[in-house]
């Protein structure tokens, strides 16, 4: 069977969604493990960030790959959504359900909101539209000019609004993962039970929980427990 007719079939589109989903899960996990190094102090986090920056062209290759994976995931989602809507032009006047979940029913919404957050997050930290963060990203003096990522994170999360938005986005991501991380096994034919309990569901819930708790621990530590407060103060003072 040709690859194109396979990919454009209803099963193929879901397989694209599942495989790109796995790659995005790996990214989310790696991103979280990288960020958690904030708890090991400024040197550790900043040297990890400098190490990533030091990858040079390879870093751009990884970024392009991730962008392509994200695009595939979104395109597959659009196809599934359009085909589903077309398959039932007249809705039920009394809709009902037996065992589907809230997470499964809201995948499109949670996915779209996480995507919107992702764009905001990139603009906020990478493109940097906040002058206070820009000063930390391009510090004067010290050679070579490594951004002080630790200070940037602390400064960013010191805003209650930023932290709240971040935490909300993590909860949405967790909701998305709680269905997606289980659903992909069925889509790829690796689940052997139908809806009946499977270790797959446990894995998805644990993975989603891990990501939410891990990622939310940082803004909570900054906002409520003053993580990096003294460090940021000394950096800002030195400038």
């Amino acid at each position, binding site marked *: *069977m040709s690859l194109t*007719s*396979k990919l454009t*079939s*209803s*099963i*193929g*589109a*879901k*397989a694209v969604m599942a495989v790109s989903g796995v790659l995005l899960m790996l990214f989310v996990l790696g991103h979280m493990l990288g960020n958690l190094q904030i708890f090991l102090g400024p040197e550790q986090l900043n040297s990890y960030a400098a190490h990533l920056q030091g990858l040079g062209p390879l870093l751009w290759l990884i970024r392009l790959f991730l962008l392509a994976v994200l695009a595939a995931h979104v395109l597959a989602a659009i*196809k*599934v959504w359009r*085909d*589903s809507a*077309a*398959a*039932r*032009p*007249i*809705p*039920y*006047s*009394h*809709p*009902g*359900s*037996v*065992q*589907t*979940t809230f997470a*499964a*029913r809201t*995948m499109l919404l949670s996915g779209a909101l996480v995507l919107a957050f992702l764009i905001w997050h990139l603009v906020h930290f990478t493109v940097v539209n906040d002058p206070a963060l820009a000063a930390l990203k391009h510090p004067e003096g010290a050679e070579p000019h490594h951004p002080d990522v630790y200070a940037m994170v602390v400064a960013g999360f010191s805003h209650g609004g930023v932290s709240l938005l971040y935490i909300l986005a993590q909860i949405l991501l967790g909701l998305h993962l709680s*269905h997606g991380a*289980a*659903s992909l*096994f*069925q*889509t*790829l*034919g*690796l*689940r*052997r*039970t*139908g*809806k*009946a309990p499977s270790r797959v569901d446990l894995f998805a819930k644990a993975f989603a929980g891990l990501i939410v708790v891990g990622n939310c621990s940082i803004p909570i530590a900054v906002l409520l427990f003053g993580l990096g407060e003294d460090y940021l103060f000394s950096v800002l003072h030195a400038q």
Partner: protein
Amino acid sequence: MELTLHVWRQAGPDQPGRMEIIRATGISEDMSFLEMLDKVNDDLIRDGVEPIHFDHDCREGICGTCSLMINGIAHGPEEGTTTCQLHMRSFQDGDSIYIEPWRSRAFPVIKDLVVDRSAFDRIMQAGGYVSINVGAAPDANSIPVPKEDADLAFDAAACIGCGACVASCPNGSAMLFVSAKIGHLAHLPQGRVEHERRLRAMVAQMDKEGFGPCSNHFECEAVCPKEISARFIGEMNRDFIRC
């Protein structure tokens, strides 16, 4: 029992339809759901009103002709039960019951609650058969089949093709039906031979008919009157990706 029915009425395939309120009186809890509709129709005919059209044939849960979305659940509230085997004791006196046809682009309404399910027939024609002569009944016993495979084939073969899976799927997907038909033959040596060709042809026809994709809501297996497991969907996905 007295009931308030909200029933979809539609004069013909290209006519507009709407939900209509019809009172059902003198209903016994021993009646089946379809006998309840028979009684309502008797009363409607007596009053000179067009009776409610609905699909039915065997009325013993084996042919797959009856349908009906009852309060949003395909074949109603009783698990593993077709509408013809559902009884009015599952409802309370004074209940409001919403009765709608299967909703799917691939199942156009013919009249009222009757839908055209020939899309399923075309999927079967695309590959849901064994095209070699496999002999008579005694020949089947000459090929040993592992017990587990025989059981799985039998579970899948229990599909009566009613279309409840499509009707209940939030995406209007026919994956449970198609995977049951494919899985039933794939687990037997006689069917295994043409498995890949059958799989490709039936999936292509399924997409062509306009059924939706599967998002793993598992609503299909929950309403299936034959309790067919969505594990067959997983098997179909795996084999489709591999072939």
